[in-house]
């Protein structure tokens, strides 16, 4: 088969996939008797046309950058980590335990402690599936799915039976102490000129961007990153080159789980400021779509996370102002995963044909 030019591979394939997903979403909206043009107007108006909307879009994007990077690191090692959701929930537990019981003097120190707790708990939740994959050959996709459900049960148990303050009815922890409050965009000098009203986007956004740089450095500028990518491309070749499979699987999954867990400093510490049930609310799964659309590259992940942030905030606006249910975003999410992930080959075959057509007509002209 002919090869696609590099620019087409990097930019055109995801764009075509995205367009296909958008067309089908529009058809779905028409099918339920609504107006797709109105839908996109409401979404754009509510998410990127004013600072308030951006405050939410960037807040969602922050979570998705973390979970997208988590899936990306695992993907490069040839592992499909569907467990981001559970790892992010456990990350929330790590944040709560780090912040609730120790009176940190300043939010920076509290953030450091919470980030360590989040990453540690997220990584720990990924460690068991990783170990079972490395040592016992249990398929990581199935074990991480199972661990999502076990995490959900564990969190219900922790919130209802252990962490719930006495006398309270709702399954949630106490509010975090005020010294652990992370500055939102409307509280950061300079940014507060743009963001005048309270928004959930907070300093974690910059940590997410920094993590994207760190992941890029790790994967393409370190020996470990090289080993991870080599292992993901071909396990026998990596083994022959002296790369220890157990070590790579464990390290890649620990980093992946840690990144997914880190998401909790955005939603649990930055926004809710207490641990609630189902804290990750699907962001772990969206990481899969984000990583696939971002072509498993940190730059792509950040862009895709912004797009999904827009989709999430815009979808919420749809639920408020139109008759289109908020679940439309789940449909779009599914379509994006289907086209960018599973039907990648179809889009590629299509484009290769078109390019070949151009090439032959050029030859004939010459």
């Amino acid at each position, binding site marked *: 088969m002919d090869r696609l030019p590099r620019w087409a591979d990097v930019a055109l394939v995801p764009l075509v996939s995205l367009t296909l997903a958008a067309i089908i979403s529009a058809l779905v909206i028409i099918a339920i008797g609504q107006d797709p043009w109105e839908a996109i107007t409401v979404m754009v108006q509510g998410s990127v046309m004013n600072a308030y909307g951006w405050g939410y879009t960037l807040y969602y994007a922050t979570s998705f950058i973390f979970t997208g990077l988590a899936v990306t690191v695992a993907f490069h090692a040839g592992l499909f980590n569907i467990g981001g959701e559970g790892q992010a929930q456990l990350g929330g537990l790590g944040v709560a335990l780090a912040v609730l019981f120790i009176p940190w003097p300043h939010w920076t120190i509290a953030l450091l402690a919470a980030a360590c707790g989040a990453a540690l708990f997220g990584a720990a939740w990924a460690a068991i599936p990783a170990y079972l994959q490395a040592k016992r050959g249990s398929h990581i996709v*199935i074990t991480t799915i199972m661990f999502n459900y*076990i995490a959900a*049960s564990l969190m219900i148990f922790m919130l209802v039976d252990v962490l719930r303050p006495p006398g309270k009815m709702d399954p949630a922890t106490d509010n975090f102490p005020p010294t652990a409050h992370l500055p939102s965009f409307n509280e950061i000098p300079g940014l507060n000129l743009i963001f005048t009203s309270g928004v959930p986007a907070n300093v974690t956004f910059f940590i997410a961007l920094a993590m994207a740089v760190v992941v890029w450095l790790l994967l393409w500028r370190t020996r470990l990153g090289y080993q991870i990518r080599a292992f993901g491309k071909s396990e026998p070749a990596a083994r022959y080159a002296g790369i220890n499979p157990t070590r790579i699987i464990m390290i890649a999954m620990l980093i992946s789980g840690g990144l997914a867990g880190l998401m909790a400093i955005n939603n649990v510490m930055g926004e809710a400021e207490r641990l609630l049930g189902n804290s990750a609310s699907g962001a772990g799964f969206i990481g899969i779509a984000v990583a696939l659309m971002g072509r498993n590259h940190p730059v792509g992940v950040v862009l895709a996370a912004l797009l999904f942030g827009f989709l999430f905030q815009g979808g919420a606006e749809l639920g408020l102002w139109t008759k289109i*249910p908020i*679940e439309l975003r789940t*449909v779009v*999410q*599914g379509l994006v*995963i*289907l086209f960018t992930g599973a039907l990648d080959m179809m889009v590629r075959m299509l484009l290769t044909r078109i390019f070949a057509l151009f090439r032959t007509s050029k030859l004939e002209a010459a």
Partner: protein
Amino acid sequence: MDYSTLLQILDSTLRLATPLLLACLAGLYSERAGVFDIGLEGKMLTAAMCAGAVAFYTGNAWIGALAGIAGSMIFALIHGVTSITFRGNQLIAGVALNFLASGMTVLVAQSLFGQGGRTPPLEGGARFNPIDLPIADALKDVPVLGPFYHEVISGHSILVYAAFAIVALTWWVLYRTRYGLRLRAVGENPAAVDTAGVSVKGLRFSAVMVTGVLCGLAGAYMATALQAGFGKEMTAGRGYIALAALIFAKWRPVQAMYACLLFGFFQALALRPDVVESVVQFKVPVPFLDALPYILTVIVLAGFIGKAIPPRAGGEPYVKER
């Protein structure tokens, strides 16, 4: 715990095991043919919505079930085209279909009925109602076995009995027919099947479509027998429990039945924490009972209770030699 409580729990075990069993057998066909399917959940959900909606309009549970099967088969077709024709990643396709189903079912139900993504409650002929087996009433007073027959075995909807009949049917198809032999072969060594002049794609498509039919029955059972109508996310992870049961049973039909009964029993216990407490003499947290099927599956996957080895060609798209 007295005998009547035990009977009650066994009765709900059968009811709760049925959707698991149907979905589990559905997965068995697909995975035995070498196509991993983590989209069972989405297919069930789609079927439940279609069955609930059509049963409401027609007032006939059978037509509802057919609609459920049709809806589930459309999803199975997408899965087949993606993973067999275009050789896409089967796992990612499954994940995508689950999200698609989760969103689409609510969108459609909301636009049809405007009740927050539910279908209206079904009654009468729009549901599969319990049927009494012959002479259940006459045997009621026979000690021990009489109440067991009357309470546990009799008085379920037709789909419950159908599910158990399909276990036997699946066993027969898989181990006693030419189609079954080829199905097992195509999941282990598709190249050999191809060499024998049998279409790998055709076989795999047929298996994926059977998966669609059985998931359709599972979903229809959820909406028109177990409960009265479709509700948002009503399958609640049953597709994944079925997948767990399939692995637990090492991809074999009769063992799948036992696994589903066991997991159904756990679900029945989770509904009665008071009974659990009185038996084990200390308070067992309900979330632990909910998580038990998943924990057991991980233990099985880890190979501590016999090793679960999937069909060898599972997850690999087949590329014909040129």
